[in-house]
């Protein structure tokens, strides 16, 4: 999507309910701005995020996907983010292996207290995606029109 020729990426952020979604809330209540390109989907835990959701987002036109969860060791469900960490590491590695720009995916651990980190991370990520430009390697052409 572009407005006035400026590239406005579509970014999906999966946030776990207990830490990162709360971190995003804190960023909000602290008025720590980040671009509106980021849209958050609440999931109970980072381990709920199926690689298929991430690929699906790219298919449907997302330019970047970020997954945020509790810091390792702090998972509300004690171990969920450890599984998420392995899954995402392997998935990202595979995407990289297939020639998809590796900056399009990211995992960041953001606690409920880290509003600043949430906002900084999102600012960085949007900047990165803007520098990478539109996602052409994983999109489905049918969704472009």
């Amino acid at each position, binding site marked *: 999507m572009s407005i006035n020729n400026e590239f406005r990426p579509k970014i999906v952020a999966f946030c776990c309910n207990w830490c990162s979604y709360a971190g995003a809330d804190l960023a909000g209540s602290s008025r720590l701005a980040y671009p509106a390109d980021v849209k958050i989907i609440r999931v109970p835990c980072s381990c709920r995020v199926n690689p298929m959701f991430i690929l699906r987002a790219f298919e*449907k*036109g997302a330019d970047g996907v970020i997954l945020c969860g509790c810091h390792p060791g702090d998972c509300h469900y004690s171990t969920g983010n450890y599984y998420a960490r392995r899954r995402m590491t392997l998935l990202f590695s595979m995407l990289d292996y297939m020639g998809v720009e590796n900056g399009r995916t990211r995992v960041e651990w953001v606690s409920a207290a880290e509003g600043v980190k949430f906002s900084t991370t999102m600012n960085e990520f949007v900047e990165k995606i803007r520098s990478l430009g539109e996602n052409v390697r994983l999109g489905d052409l*049918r*969704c472009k*029109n």
Partner: protein
Amino acid sequence: MKRIALENLPKLYAAIAEKQSLILPVKKAGQTNFGLWTEEADVDLATLKTVKSAKDAFFPQSETLYTCQRDGKTLSLQPEKLEEEPFVVFGIKGCDVRGIQILDKVFLSEPVDSFYCARRKHGIIVSLACAAPEESCFCKVFGIDCAEPEGDVVTWIAEGYLYWKAATEKGEALTAQVADLLEDADTAAVDAQKAAIAAIVEKLPYANLSLEGWNGKVLNEKFNSPLWEQLYKPCLACGTCTFVCPTCQCYDIKDYNTGNGVQRYRCWDSCMYSDFTMMAHGNNRTSQLQRFRQRFMHKLVYFPANNDGAYSCVGCGRCVEKCPSHLNIVKVIKAFEKEGK
């Protein structure tokens, strides 16, 4: 009879492609399939059998039928345009030409399939005679002469030349388009090749496969044979045989959600798949045995029953080569033969 030196073929392709799109065997990542000609395309006429048949040119593996566009709560419907431009399919072997004729029986009989019909109307078939049939070929069984295929234009590759013979009006028109590149020729080289091929075809292992006992009238007898119980066992239920087959014509219709609407498309289906003919109430073939049987019964019994005895198999041998479990129609025919039908 006309001819063109093989080294000038790129010029011929370019000349054809100038007026219409040209589809021909192209090698990509080590495999040869029919594909659109471009300057960069690695045209491969040496491979006898493309992995997929030429069926895609007229009946693509998937094609959009119409698109629903959503704007707020209103929907607009946009039918997919039918083929309006001429195109040339070059290098189709005799078996695949017959395959298209079999598809015609399905799609051009009432109710006519408008998408297929439009492509048939605008497609020009330039066939290519086989120069070196292989062990899996058994087109002869179905009365196909691979040395003299049908088509709008028929071509042969012999002694450094591509020989060219227009066989229909469409063919004549195409010949006129590229007349500058063709020279007149006698038929000696082609005749010699035909004779050689005839001799080789006789020696092919499956050349004399007998179809005795396979016709539209043996439905119950074949259907109820206990042989299927053994035959289907190694089947993996993949769609390889179906998708490489020039005559398989089953398709499924599906919707793709584009976010702002729906694209309704159809795509090849395979009777080997567990969701083949799945309906709201469930599936009428619940076991792989039933699905496996369906494929062969369709080709050798149901189809002939509805089409004046014509089998829905052309003996191209692709399934023989590609089945991961080494199952194929030949083994099925032979198994029944061995059991005394």
